[in-house]
């Protein structure tokens, strides 16, 4: 069943050397560290390039320690980055100030600078998330979020998404195989109607599964909340990691805040 390819979910999960100090950190330390770095990056003023560079250095050091190559990072970043950058794309066209004439269009110099800074922020944030995902399993991240007091319901929903994404993707593959096996090759827009029917069937199956999962939860005493099994241990290395990230970024960031 699970043998039937998980193409869509390739390129997720752990990468690098699983025995590295970064992989072995308590997931809470990593969530706090990477989230902190992202917050520092996004709250820095647009001309705060020293902070962006410092963030990049920290990320590079973490990636090197975890033995995650730039190729792996780029392969994952490129899925998220275009979505993040889409908004920033219009900045050079709509900002005022000095204009750079390029024939039919003109660009704003301030807009270009803003675009560069926003891109840097987006890249830093995305890379942080990618490194968290490459050094921490998804269940461990969920456990960390839970013990960091993220509402349990949200964590539970994220857990279900993770658990059943694979089931649903397998189901989609089987349905597509069934279509192809009977010679389905849409040539016109009308031919796409079959896709609609597949989507409907998928929705109904998923809905029915949801009902069965709920019955299974009830059978094991579910009463509206899921108590946690706390297996996390926050140790000295975790403190060191968070402190190192904070020490290398906070002074610079605070210095910039004072005009």
């Amino acid at each position, binding site marked *: 069943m699970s043998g039937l390819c998980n193409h869509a979910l390739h390129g997720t999960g752990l990468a690098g050397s699983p025995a590295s100090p970064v992989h072995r950190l308590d997931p809470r330390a990593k969530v706090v560290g990477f989230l902190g770095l992202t917050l520092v990056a996004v709250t820095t003023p647009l001309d705060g390039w020293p902070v962006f560079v410092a963030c990049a250095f920290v990320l590079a050091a973490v990636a090197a320690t975890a033995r995650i190559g730039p190729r792996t990072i780029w392969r994952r970043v490129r899925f998220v980055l275009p979505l993040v950058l889409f908004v920033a794309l219009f900045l050079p066209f709509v900002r005022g100030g000095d204009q750079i004439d390029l024939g039919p269009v003109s660009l704003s110099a301030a807009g270009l600078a803003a675009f560069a800074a926003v891109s840097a922020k987006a890249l830093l944030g995305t890379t942080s998330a990618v490194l968290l995902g490459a050094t921490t399993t*998804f269940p461990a991240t969920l456990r960390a979020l839970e013990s960091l007091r993220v509402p349990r319901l949200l964590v539970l929903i994220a857990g279900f998404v*993770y658990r*059943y994404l694979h089931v649903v993707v397998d189901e989609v593959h089987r349905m597509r195989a069934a279509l192809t096996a009977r010679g389905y090759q849409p040539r016109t827009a009308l031919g796409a109607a079959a896709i609609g029917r597949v989507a409907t069937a998928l929705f109904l199956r998923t809905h029915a599964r949801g009902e069965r999962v709920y*019955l299974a939860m009830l*059978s094991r005493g*579910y*009463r509206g909340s*899921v108590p946690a*099994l706390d297996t996390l241990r926050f140790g000295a290395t975790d403190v060191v990691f968070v402190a190192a990230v904070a020490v290398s970024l906070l002074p610079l960031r605070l210095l910039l805040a004072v005009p």
Partner: protein
Amino acid sequence: MTCVIDAADLRFRYPDGREALRGVNLAVDHGERVAVLGPNGAGKTTFVYHLNGLLRGQGRLEVAGLEVEDGTVRELRPRVGLVFQDPDDQLFMPTVREDVAFGPLNMGERPSAVEARVDETLRMVRMEHAAERPPHQLSMGERRRVAIATVLAMRPQLLVLDEPTANLDPRARRELLEVLTTIERTMLVVTHDLPFAAQLCERAVILSQGRIAADGACTAVLADGDLLAAHDLELPAGFDPRLVTAAAA
């Protein structure tokens, strides 16, 4: 001591009018392993859902020492270990460990005690190596055994298995049989895998059109070709149930 399951004239009708149970009478004693056989649509799963109060019919039903009614379902559910047909329905947590811990934690056990219980239960089903893995990385046979562990962790009085051999290859099926024979618990095994029933259970009942149509020693029920044929059941060619000795309960 009372029976583990005591059903008297149990009836159930689905909202669409289909009558799934038409007066089921069944008594199962402590320590018995009973196979519930029957063709598709005979009401097997409907009956199973009654045992822990997921569905409620008319008639009298007592399970694990409790009358099944509104006030008792909370207490009842940990006593009845219900293993669903599709392990993907049963294993809904991100890792095997969290899934096995789900039931005991809901029962209010302390987390430290639960951890020990999770390890012990996973050993019972020979899956102790998979505690940290997400269920979708396991084979069908492994998922099935983990699903059994998730209910065994609640230390139920009664273990109910709905089509436990569905989608299993021969080896996974044999491993499941080996695990189940070592578990000392009253068991109700719903299946149309007749050889599996013969190997695991000493007693068999046939549920057909919402009623118990036969009840007796598993080998005797399975050896009665006319009885099986009358209820759309068939043994695989060449299989002789008299040559099988059920695992000692």
